[in-house]
């Protein structure tokens, strides 16, 4: 093997197979490419039959696409995972304390840790929530924290998804499909199960029901409907949780109480797991054109008669400008250094940083502070001159709207592409649940993989694929380093 520039999940820097992957290496060696191709085709058929499709906005021909699934798993050892878990719990606790604070006493602004306009200028800051508390002070009930790895034991947070993170259905269904299709590979490993996620999620949602809820709380999942890109996931989760999948017009508000329309008349709703963004949730409070929302929902929410998860206003913590302050935010609220580091970030709002970014556009990744899904970003090393010039104009018009990061040496993992095995860049999104009884991370997550050679963009809207992610006991490996 020749030495590689990027850390590879299976082969390190190319000198030797990491012990964790011995079973995979062995399996790949004895499985011919045509069998792998058959397995991949079977997996795709299973995904089609299950109905895990994804709608791409702006796509005109094939509106229901399959996210590419790679059959080679990504493996993380239990000890690596335990360290990540501690960092994730700390980070999500800090996010919740941060939200309680900026919608409350704003101590962090008083202490001068953050420039105030970074909050007030933020499009996702909800002044309506100022001075309000949410049950158990939990704002972000479900967080998807995007991690990247750059080397042995080196993980960094790339993004905090604190609004309505998606992808957990892939974490669960990828595992089911792998168990069915690759029992031979499974028998070489002991893998931490993920199928208790739905139970953990339901427990977290029930735990934050308003105190006004009588008896067993009624939880529903609010979806924008079947044309939403993540609709499969909404229906999948509602089914696993045994809760109703509702659309805006299934709900109504009377005297500040939310009801769903049932065959037996109105039924009171206590907790809404919404997969609709703040802007669309209540036409009376936010976007008046929204047909997806529930008129009067916010009044019921303010009255404490319904819990909305994630809380309204969490988008402010999801912002990439805030992200750059996360190490300070973690320190401020927990009194400890952040256990999970950030990727180096230049805030273009700061003149020196702006100047640096402007001069190094061809080397950097530049992102809008509240963009998502891989839209509105520039990947310098892969962009044409014209792309860069075009992007520079937008940047100059509003520098504070952008941050920049170095193009990371994202780790790769072997993937089966076309008819051979080749390294592709990956990230990892674990899902972190917070309820009245604390923070819980199901051991696993969604590994996203950039299916094009050399590409660093893993978003499914940009052609990224997924892999099953295995957390395995260290006894399977005798990795020294």
């Amino acid at each position, binding site marked *: 093997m020749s030495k590689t520039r990027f850390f590879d999940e299976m082969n390190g820097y190319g000198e030797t197979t990491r012990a964790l992957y011995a079973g995979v290496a062995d399996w790949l060696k004895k499985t011919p490419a045509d069998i792998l191709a058959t397995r991949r085709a079977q997996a795709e058929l299973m995904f089609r039959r299950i109905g895990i499709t994804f709608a791409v906005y702006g796509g005109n021909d094939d509106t229901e696409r399959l996210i590419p699934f790679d059959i080679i798993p990504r493996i993380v050892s239990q000890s690596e995972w335990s360290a990540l878990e501690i960092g994730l719990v700390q980070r999500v606790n800090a996010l919740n304390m941060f939200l309680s604070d900026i919608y409350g006493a704003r101590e962090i602004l008083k202490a001068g840790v953050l420039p105030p306009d970074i909050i007030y200028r933020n499009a996702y800051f909800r002044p309506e929530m100022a001075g309000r508390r949410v049950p158990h002070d939990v704002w972000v009930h479900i967080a998807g924290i995007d991690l990247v790895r750059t080397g042995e034991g080196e993980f960094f947070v790339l993004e905090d998804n604190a609004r309505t993170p998606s992808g957990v259905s892939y974490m669960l269904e990828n595992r089911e499909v792998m*168990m*069915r*299709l690759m*029992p*031979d590979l*499974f*028998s070489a490993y*002991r*893998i*931490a*199960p993920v*199928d*208790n996620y*739905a*139970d*953990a999620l*339901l*427990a977290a949602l*029930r735990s934050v029901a308003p105190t006004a809820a009588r008896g*067993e709380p*009624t*939880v529903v999942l609010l979806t924008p409907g079947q044309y939403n890109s993540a609709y499969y996931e909404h229906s999948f989760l509602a*089914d*696993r*949780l*045994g*809760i109703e999948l509702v659309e805006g017009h299934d709900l109504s508000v009377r005297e500040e109480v939310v009801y769903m329309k049932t065959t037996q008349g109105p039924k009171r709703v206590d907790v809404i797991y919404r997969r609709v963004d703040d802007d669309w949730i209540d036409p009376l409070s936010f976007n008046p054109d929204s047909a997806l929302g529930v008129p009067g929902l916010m009044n019921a929410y303010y009255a404490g008669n319904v819990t909305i998860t994630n809380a309204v206003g969490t988008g402010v913590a999801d912002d990439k400008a805030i992200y750059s302050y996360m190490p300070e935010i973690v320190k401020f609220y927990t009194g400890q250094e952040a256990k999970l580091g950030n990727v180096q970030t230049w805030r273009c709002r700061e003149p020196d940083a702006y100047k640096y970014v402007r001069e190094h556009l061809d080397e950097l990744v530049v992102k809008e502070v509240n963009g998502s899904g891989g839209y509105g970003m520039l990947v310098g090393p892969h962009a044409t001159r014209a792309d860069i010039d075009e992007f520079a104009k937008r940047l100059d018009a509003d520098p504070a709207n952008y941050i920049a990061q170095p193009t990371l040496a994202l780790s790769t993992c072997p993937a089966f592409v076309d008819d051979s095995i080749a390294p592709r860049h990956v990230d990892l999104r674990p899902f972190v649940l917070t309820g009245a009884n604390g923070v*819980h991370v199901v051991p696993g997550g969604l590994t996203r993989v950039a299916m094009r050679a050399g590409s660093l963009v893993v978003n499914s809207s940009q052609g990224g694929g997924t892999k099953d992610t295995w957390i*395995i*006991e260290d006894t399977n490996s005798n990795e020294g380093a």
Partner: protein
Amino acid sequence: MLARTAENLYWLARYIERADFTARIIEVTARLAALPQNYRRSGGEWESALAAVGALNSFKASFSEATESNVVFFLTFDEANPSSIRRCLEQARINARTIRTALTAEMWQSINAGWLELKAMEEKRRGGEYSGADSIQPFLEFVKAVSLDFDGSSYRTMLRNDAYWFNRIGLYCERADNTARLMDVKYNVLLPKTEEVGGSLDYFQWTAILRAVSAQTAYHWVYRESVKPWLIADLLILRKEMPRSLAYCYDGLTRFLDSLGKAYGKQGLAQRHARNILRRIDSASMESIFQQGLHEFVTKFIEDNNRLGALIAEQYLHH
């Protein structure tokens, strides 16, 4: 109807249901056995699979160790095990051929096609082509599909007369036995001793029980809360909306036995016994069952259910 025809119809349904249950048990056991050590109790998953299908003693007569490969072979292709899936399908086909004219074309074809496919798989296995962990999952899927096909064909194409009633009586009698055995093996993890949720070592045991009866989602729809062992017991014993519960099976059994009684103008001990069991289930609550002891309740149920089988045989099948 010939007593012999009725007997074949009844056993045919039982064998197919048993094959289906065995396939399900292998599936969930493989899943449990693959969990990391800190997610399960001290092993013994495969012994408990054998116990759940009532084959522990016969297994011990021919194997010394309950390894995954031994147990899976014993329960799937082993010709020496009278309740292996292979033997169940073989016996079902023999029964079906014996009474070919009492079956609809669809029913016969589902059994016959299933048997031919199984023989083809067995040939490949002997040739070394179809073996190892890889082949088991597709095989189990196949077995479940055969049972779905047979059950659906019976439901859709049979006349609603005594032939259909014997088919259903066989099905529900076997299913009640299977559900009860599953609980009997797992009763120790179903006791309401702790309130802890999620963190319990038994969590994956509980969900395995639900998986075995395809009720993971059903559970959440019925109870709308996280998995609790006493609610699993409630679902599998008392809930009439659950198609594998003891209550549902006995609803079916009393109904179809009554249909027989009416059509033949004569009620007998089987009808009376089935109604007694149903009455006992209907008047029970989980509190009363746990007070009596879940194990005791289930053991008594299995005995009663066997007794019903014997009474049906006496009354209708062995004149």
